[in-house]
């Protein structure tokens, strides 16, 4: 396995590592945004807008959060199915 294939951005999309690494990457991005305090900016949802940049940060957080909750776990579980189905078909992942 080359170093490039371990890079989440360069790994093949339809591969166990491709799914798994992207899932982890999404969660990592969300955790970073959370730790730097972007959760505060989600007040745009209720119309308590702080204005342009604040709203943009809130929307960025909202998207990362939605992906981390609904998409990343799907990708991570899919990685497991990918492994199992490749083994079943007798092919390399």
């Amino acid at each position, binding site marked *: 396995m080359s170093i490039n294939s371990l890079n989440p951005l360069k790994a*093949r*999309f*339809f*591969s166990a590592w491709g*799914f798994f690494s992207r899932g982890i990457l999404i969660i990592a991005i969300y955790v970073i945004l959370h730790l730097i305090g972007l*959760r*505060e*900016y*989600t*007040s*745009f*949802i*209720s*119309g*308590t*807008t*702080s204005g342009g940049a604040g709203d943009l940060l809130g929307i960025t957080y909202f998207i990362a*959060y939605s992906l981390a*909750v*609904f998409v990343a*776990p*799907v*990708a*991570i*579980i*899919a*990685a*497991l*199915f*990918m492994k199992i*189905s*490749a083994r*079943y*078909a*007798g*092919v390399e992942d």
Partner: protein
Amino acid sequence: MLKKFFSCRVCRGITSLLLSALIWLPNAHRLFDQPESNYIAQSGIAPNAMAIAGRHIKFWTDPELRKAELEKMRSRNAEWDFMARCFFVWSLANMGLRDPALTETVLPVMDSIIDTTISLEEQNGIHFFLMPYSRRAEFELQPARSIFIDGEIALMLGLRRLLAEKPEYQKLHRERIEIMLQRMEQSPVLCAESYPDESWLFCNSVALAAIKVGDYLDGTDHSEFFARWLKSAKESLIDKESGLLVSSFDFAGKTVFDGPEGSTIWLVAHCLKLIDPAFAEEQYRLATKHLKTSMGYFGYAYEWPGGIGHDDVDSGPIIPLLNLSAGSTGLAFVGAATFDDREYLAALYRSLELGAFPVYDANGVKYCGSNTVGDAVLLYSMAQGPAWEKIMKGRPADEH
């Protein structure tokens, strides 16, 4: 055949994604499920209600924090500053009734908010708590007053008195009731103006509740007025298509400005429960029929029946695609809690944990996706119950 299918990388990938989506998506809600007892307690106060109240008490007793929070509200909508005060005082009254040990803690906070609010109204006039368009025309009834301000202040005074009588507040409460009744009587549909030539059912139903609280406390009887009001509302203020009460109309009650709205009807049903429980429940059921919705296990509410309509500064934005209205969804908590709609409440609480972005700290909890008025409404939905129950039960003397 299956081996051949799985030897294709893309086929394997798509199948894996579909299978895992089938497993994850129907179960994702479990991350956000909390026991109902965290929000609603049969007796005493639920932990989440205490956490919201803790944070509010902190900022109402810290001038700097209060200033920052209220300025944030006022920069968007002065009404939100006012309503945050009212919903919080109404909540504290209910919390005191739920747990008498809290009474000594909540009374000074309630009094401080009531006194500051009345003093701001006296110093700056009614427009201080209204949106700028309140100055664009003259009120039909002079001198200019808004039933939005009178009704909510009267209900703050009334619920404070319900928790513990205070003679100064009795006088202020009675004065507001007399003013409201006198102005409501002058309207053909018995509804006073919130804004110039614009009457809102939200404000008039809060006024009715404040009058009813006054009847309970002072032994007055406005049942004849309530009966006339209900008859008039059923004849003139019902939307023919949905059967729901409309939201706003002119002083004469001839022109409807806004039909049924979520940010109005949930609270109207809550207030009308004091006057006519059967009619209130019918309005709640119709509101759920037209406004209640969900995305999977996550419940929320539309602002307009069927989710079709615009957003406004009154009720906040509507999230595109989902047509989720934060204003309507916030007040749906109050409606669902009032009518003990556990299924809808569970779905709403799940959405609260998913999409309102709670942050817990030493002071309590705040919902980042919400704001001060939103949090106060949430708190009210968790605390409400004992005040209405007490009034509906009637005074011991009335039972004989």
